[in-house]
């Protein structure tokens, strides 16, 4: 997310771990067989939000009861801030 404050990414990292995103997508959102890579160039936020709230495939749904909009935005900031791969 262009222009995201570092503190948002930091908060997002904590939330990313706390709500278990890393279990399928890896701690750096690098992706695995259990979940695709999410950063550093994530899908646009509206699609990202839809994929989390109402996933089409097997991903567990995250309702607003367990992940607020603000927390979701922080996660988006975190995955956007991930490093590019080594060449």
């Amino acid at each position, binding site marked *: 997310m262009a222009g995201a404050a570092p503190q948002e990414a930091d908060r997002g990292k904590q939330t990313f771990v706390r709500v278990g995103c890393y*279990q399928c997508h*890896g701690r*750096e959102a*690098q992706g695995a067989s259990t979940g695709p890579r999410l950063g550093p160039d994530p899908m646009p936020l509206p699609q990202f939000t839809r994929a989390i709230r109402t996933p089409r495939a*097997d991903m567990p749904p995250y309702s607003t009861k*367990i992940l607020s909009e603000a927390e979701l935005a922080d996660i988006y900031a975190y995955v956007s801030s991930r490093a590019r791969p080594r060449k």
Partner: protein
Amino acid sequence: MNRRTFLKDAAGALAGGAALAGTGSAQAPPREQDAESLTTDRCGADCMVDVVKAIGLEYICANPGSSFRALHEAIVNYGGNAKPELITCCHEESSVAMAHGFAKIDGKPIGVMAHGTVGLQHAAMAIYNAYCDRVPVYIIIGNTLDATERRPGVEWAHSVQDASSLVRDFSKWDDTPVSLEHFAESAVRAYTIAMTPPMGPVLIVADSELQERPLTGDFTLRIPKLTLSAPPQGDDAAIADVARMLVAAESPVLVADRAARTPAGLASLVQLAELLQAAVVDQGGRMNFPSRHPLNQSAQSRATIGAADLVLGLELTDFWGTVNTFRDQLHRSSRSILKPGAKTIAISTRDLGLRANYQEFQRYPELDLAVTGDAEATLPSLVEAVKRLVTADRRRVFDQRGKKLADASNAALDRAHADAGYAWDAGPVTTARLSMEMWDAIKHEDWSLVSDVNMVSNWPKRLWSFDKHSQFVGGSGGAGVGYTAPASFGAALANKPHGRLTVTIQPDGDLMYAPGILWTAAHHHIPLLSVMHNNRAYHQEVMHLQRMANRHNRGVDRAHVGTTIDDPNIDYAKVAQGMGVYAEGPIENPKDLAPALKRAIAVVKKGEPALVDVVTQPR
């Protein structure tokens, strides 16, 4: 009636009078006398060892047990502890899984000995894995059928009316011989049944009375000739139909799971694929197809199958699951991924090995053509049938198709290398980095990876170049956890005479089922490099808990309860060292991995096991 009196009265037969040998049988005790005879120079177990040697079991894996004490003693003394050699295991599940892994490399079974009660109960899950994986394992279980001969106490607790019934739902055949002649015949029969596709585990009960029966010095047991059955092949007319459909198809896909039992199966599949320039999806139950072959489309299997107009399944575990998706949400749903009009064909022995109770046979697949026959045995005739039908026009079409598939395969490899670069320096170590460091360490050796790769996101299959049959053996079959460690050592035992560098990617939860296998490896000098995939959890279950918690709107905060293996973290290097295995770790910085692997490989090359504990990302 005590045993000795019984033998005087009814020489050769067991309690109940079934299958009585004639009076004057050569199995009678050495002599009848009034004074008690306390020793004998020969016993029934010696004959059992002769049988085991005749069928060619190289090893017998066992945790010692009194119900087979005479057979145990005969193996190590009368048999000289060579072919079979006794492998001391610390758990019967390890014994069976070792035999499972051995057979995956060697193609033939080794033996397991266990109590018919508590030992078989321990062994049951590993037998189920072998059954699901269609792998031959030869199991001899001890029992004391004659109630009047049992020592009071434990021997009663360790005796059973029908020992094999515990695992009969998931073994291929069993018998309870009541004479030594019966033992010889059934033991040979069991071997042939185990080795006839679809292969599977078999059991023979060695009654303690038969084992300990004293024999005269001149007694000889006739052992029937062992003749292995040629595997069943698909019907000629049906194979001709398959060939016509393959040649006519515009985008056929060959999907293989347990197809290549031997190197010949791999070679035949390559031949068929190249003849047709057809896409191949290797589901990895066996080493079916070279990972970097230009026709290998396994990295994009769903898309490839979805675009196909013909899917040929070769020994698929789950044809339905191959051509459908299943959505695990609050309301479960599924849909076909096949395009309209796509044809499906199966060549498989699957229907020949089904049992009703355990449901490993998966959902019923709707097929256009089903051919019952062993895929490997059928492939040569299919290749010849295809050759007869290929015209110059079709050859041009095939060649164009092959070029596109080669481009897709190259793109998949490039994508894999790019994907592996993300979080390269992260700690815990990514499974991609783990896989690449391992590949760099072994790629110039004659290596053999003997663990499945799905726990590490299939990175080895995406990044390494697999082209020999011994380089991969597939998974457990029944997904019974605790398989990887003992099966890997079994496979390493089979690789040892070939001088191969055997490596395994060892999940932490799996090792904790029966870590005593590490001692077995040290004791018997089994060279294996175990690289721990230590994600400190039963991670599959973490994800299931997470799914349930989110589904129920409760959040995942407690998904770790009952699913993680931390607090305290297990120091696997110390565990291994405590059992006499060279070990390093825990490694959390990926930069430390390469030198640790180098040191561990040096140990393995000297003929010993080594373990490198790597703290990893979940998958």
